[in-house]
């Protein structure tokens, strides 16, 4: 290396000496000094090329010139700071947005689930009961392990105030199926998971840290859950959580609640199964169908309509989110395309501006390959810088995504920048640099030296060609932007439709909270009724407050359905009766929620225990089951009741309520008074409170009232009803916001693109415009001249964009609510918006063109 440095340092001097000696020789031969010098130069040849070739002798392979190009590029970039900043920023936006979405996709769709051999895990879509789960465990030939879980809340006494913790009621097999190893102690064995078995608790790492002080000797300690002592036998690792059922404590279902555990038709466990080695999903599904048939034959009353569908766990988890994410990824890919088109367009503009330099380099002996390499290196440098800046955007964008995350993206916790994301950025940057640096490099390579020198760099063929390519680029940018805008427009329209859906109640000024009565003191219905009545009396005596109770609040996520029988109808086979949603209420529930009463009457305090049984139904119930009769006075009862039939008389009809979500249909529903209910196991209730003032002070006051009735009742899930509506719209809002953001980005980039192209064209034509003005063209004519070009681009771009959007928006049909993917109003609106933006972007350079002073323009040459 040193040898080389020494040799090359003196090269210039050596050459000069050489030429000098030759000159002197020539003079000695009788030439004039001037003649002698030129003859010597001629004889020597191209000095620059000699120097370059000599340097090439010492450089090793391609690395040397490549590094040289990079050094040159690094020196050149800060010399045109505007160009460099715009190019890097453009790419950074495109790459950053892509990386952010890619890291979400990477975390949610691509990364394996955090369980042992996650590919073997499947879920049964339908919930099931413990006796059925045990039967499947015994009969299956496809599963090696399996188990179910149901999460509910129990009060835990031992913290500073009574708290509710999430308790997963499981059977032995659940934790083994997920393959978790406790960090302390052990998990429950099947021998302990029996009726009358010990009360054992396996606690989550979170519970262990927060309530057991990370005690290394926590195993064998006793904790109080729901009024009963449980012995801690194991602590789970911090990395472990069931796929959806996040729980603080896991206990055996049958040991905790022998009655609920033994009911075959109480389908409330969500079950996970592990396929045996080599068993396919189809085989397992066939095996499952056989088990279903046997259970249906054996227990026709409960299991007649049994049909268990197996779904791979991963698919089941990401199912809903997948299509949204893929649409977003497609959208953000289009944004990158626009950014790249802008980038290429910038590079070409620069290549044309630098033609003079390139031509001179070529004249001095730079090879064509070398020039192409130099241009490519520059675009690579820019794209890599763009990628690096894009990483910053992505980091920021990912935290934005996390802040916006809808419930459905539950796995978002696994999102971070890993090597795969970094690799993605690297590949995308380098590809961008090479692919989109190609066009300008091609222009550089095509430069005909002699031709270019003759024309002294003004509008030559290559630059017209470049201009045409730029027009195509800008046209495609507009087309792609239109596709994105249409997509965003459709989502926005769907979202506003969704928002304006009437939920069936008035959510304003309503607070809700969740109460659960401990089994030990409230096992019997009269006790529960007494508590409810006492509490409501106290709450309703507060000024400006109206309180009521319901089993499941709309949009709260819980749903209970029962089969029922209508009096006087031909009998239906056992197990085949229709199902309705079942709710119990107390207090003026329909008034508090402002659910309109359509026909008949509301419940009164007189509709209570030992009085005739009554029910209020919703309109959907009437439409579906009682369409041709007066619903008032119809008698219904729950199916499967033993003993004398308990007929309930329908006394009123209320409006439909969107219980499962604003975009979900309403099921037929039956409301009954809490005090006439016989479901002693449902010791839970949700307080709905309408108050003029729903500040935290009200919540505190309500809590005080609750605890003055019973100081050991935990209160949880305090939400304003408005908040529940907002949460139910999160996924749609997420889709809309992101696609809207991308569309806005696309619009800006496309506007910059068309502006750049037009501004450049005007600049190139200054001379021509000057001549036209000198020859008497009016400003109006000049304006028309420039705008005509821009309008043509805009029309082509918008037309091809509409064609593209018609083809592509079908893919997002599943994300739309009550909007067709080809909604004409959206298409028209977006096309007009884009046309206006494009024309505005052209107008600025056009106005500049109008102001061209012919004298200045002509002299400019």
């Amino acid at each position: 290396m040193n040898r080389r440095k020494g040799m090359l340092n003196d090269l210039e001097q050596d050459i000069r000496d050489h030429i000098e000696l030759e000159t002197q020789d020539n003079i000695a031969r009788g030439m004039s000094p001037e003649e002698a010098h030129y003859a010597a130069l001629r004889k020597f040849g191209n000095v620059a090329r000699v120097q370059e070739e000599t340097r090439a002798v010492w450089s090793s392979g391609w690395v040397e010139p490549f590094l040289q190009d990079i050094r040159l590029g690094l020196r050149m970039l800060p010399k045109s700071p505007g160009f460099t900043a715009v190019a890097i920023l453009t790419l950074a936006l495109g790459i950053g947005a892509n990386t952010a979405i890619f890291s979400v996709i990477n975390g949610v769709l691509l990364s394996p689930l955090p369980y042992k051999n996650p590919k073997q895990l499947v879920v049964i879509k339908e919930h099931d009961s413990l006796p059925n789960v045990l039967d499947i465990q015994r009969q299956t030939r496809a599963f090696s392990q399996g188990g179910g879980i149901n999460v509910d809340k129990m009060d835990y006494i031992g913290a500073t105030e009574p708290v509710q913790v999430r308790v997963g009621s499981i059977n032995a097999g659940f934790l083994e199926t997920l393959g978790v190893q406790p960090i302390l102690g052990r998990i429950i064995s099947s021998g302990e998971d029996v009726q009358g078995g010990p009360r054992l608790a396996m606690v989550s790492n979170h519970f262990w840290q927060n309530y057991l002080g990370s005690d290394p000797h926590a195993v064998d300690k006793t904790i109080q859950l729901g009024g009963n002592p449980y012995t801690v036998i194991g602590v789970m690792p911090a990395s472990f959580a069931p796929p959806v059922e996040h729980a603080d404590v896991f206990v055996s279902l049958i040991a905790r609640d022998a009655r609920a555990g033994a009911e075959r038709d109480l389908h409330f466990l969500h079950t996970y199964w592990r396929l045996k080695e080599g068993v396919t999903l189809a085989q397992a599904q066939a095996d499952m169908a056989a088990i279903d048939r046997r259970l249906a034959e054996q227990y026709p009353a409960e299991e007649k309509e049994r049909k268990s569908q197996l779904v791979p766990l991963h698919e089941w988890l990401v199912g809903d989110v997948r299509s949204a994410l893929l649409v977003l990824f497609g959208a953000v890919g289009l944004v990158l395309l626009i950014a790249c088109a802008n980038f290429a367009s910038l590079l070409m503009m620069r290549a044309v501006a630098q033609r003079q330099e390139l031509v001179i380099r070529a004249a001095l002996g730079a090879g064509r390959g070398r020039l192409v390499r130099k241009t490519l290196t520059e675009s690579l440098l820019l794209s890599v810088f763009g990628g690096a800046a894009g990483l910053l955007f992505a980091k920021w964008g990912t935290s934005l995504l996390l802040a916006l995350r809808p419930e459905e993206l539950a796995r978002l916790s696994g999102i971070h920048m890993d090597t795969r994301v970094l690799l993605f950025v690297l590949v995308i940057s380098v590809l961008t640099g090479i692919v989109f640096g190609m066009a300008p490099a091609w222009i550089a390579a095509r430069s005909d030296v002699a031709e270019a020198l003759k024309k002294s760099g003004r509008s030559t063929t290559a630059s017209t060609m470049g201009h045409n390519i730029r027009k195509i680029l800008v046209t495609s940018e507009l087309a792609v932007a239109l596709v994105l805008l249409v997509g965003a427009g459709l989502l926005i329209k769907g979202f506003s439709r969704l928002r304006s859906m009437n939920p069936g109640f008035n959510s304003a000024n309503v607070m809700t909270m969740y109460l659960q009565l401990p089994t030990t003191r409230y096992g019997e219905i009269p006790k529960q009724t007494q508590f409810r009545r006492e509490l409501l009396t106290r709450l309703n005596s507060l000024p400006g407050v109206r309180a009521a109770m319901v089993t499941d609040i709309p949009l709260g996520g819980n749903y209970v359905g029962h089969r029922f029988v209508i009096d006087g109808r031909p009998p239906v086979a056992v197990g085949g009766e229709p199902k309705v949603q079942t709710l119990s209420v107390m207090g003026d529930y329909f008034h508090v929620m402002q659910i309109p009463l359509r026909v008949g009457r509301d419940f009164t305090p007189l509709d209570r225990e030992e009085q005739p049984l009554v029910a209020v139904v919703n309109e959907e119930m009437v439409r579906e089951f009682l369409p041709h009769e007066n619903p008032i006075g119809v008698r219904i009862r729950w199916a499967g009741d033993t003993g004398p039939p308990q007929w309930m008389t329908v006394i009123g009809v209320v409006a439909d309520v969107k219980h499962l979500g604003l975009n979900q249909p309403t099921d037929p529903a039956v409301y009954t008074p809490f005090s006439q209910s016989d479901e002693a196991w449902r010791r839970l209730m949700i307080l709905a409170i309408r108050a003029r003032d729903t500040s935290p002070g009200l919540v505190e006051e309500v809590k005080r009232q609750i605890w003055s009735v019973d100081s050991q009742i935990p209160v949880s899930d305090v939400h304003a009803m408005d908040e529940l509506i907002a949460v139910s719209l999160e996924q749609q809002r997420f889709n809309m916001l992101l696609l809207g953001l991308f569309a806005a980005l696309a619009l800006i980039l496309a506007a910059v693109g068309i502006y750049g192209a037009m501004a450049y064209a005007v600049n190139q034509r200054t001379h021509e415009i000057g001549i036209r003005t000198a020859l008497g063209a009016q400003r109006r004519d000049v304006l028309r001249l420039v705008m005509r070009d821009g309008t043509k681009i805009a029309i082509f771009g918008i037309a091809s964009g509409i064609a593209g959007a018609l083809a592509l928006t079908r893919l997002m049909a599943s994300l739309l609510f009550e909007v067709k993917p080809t909604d004409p109003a959206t298409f028209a609106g977006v096309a007009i918006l884009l046309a206006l933006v494009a024309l505005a972007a052209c107008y600025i350079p056009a106005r500049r063109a109008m102001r061209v002073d012919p004298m200045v323009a002509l002299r400019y040459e």
Partner: protein
Amino acid sequence: MSTKEQRKRIGLLQGTLDLLILRTLLLGPTHGHAIAKAIEFNSDDVLQVEQGSLYPALHRLIKRRWISVEEGTSENNRRAKFYGLTAKGRRQLVVETSKWDKLAVAIARILRPAEPGAQQESKP
């Protein structure tokens, strides 16, 4: 660089210049201009090297360690680089020369099957 001049001149085969430089330096170390002059003079001005192309060739030979370079003083008392043959270069010259002879004979046989002394044809 007019076309007329180009017609009279005989271009050099790839690698031939290296051989000529080595042969010239066999007489002793000298500087770049002198090497060019010597090649021209010894070939009766027929082999007109574009003098510049000497330099990449010199550097190539230095890199291969066939010639060495040291500071010296030229005939008009100026500091200049003197190039000299190394032992390795000397051995290489022998190899290259015999290779060249074989090549020249072979090509001459192909071009002038009847006249074995075809080498002289290239001289005017």
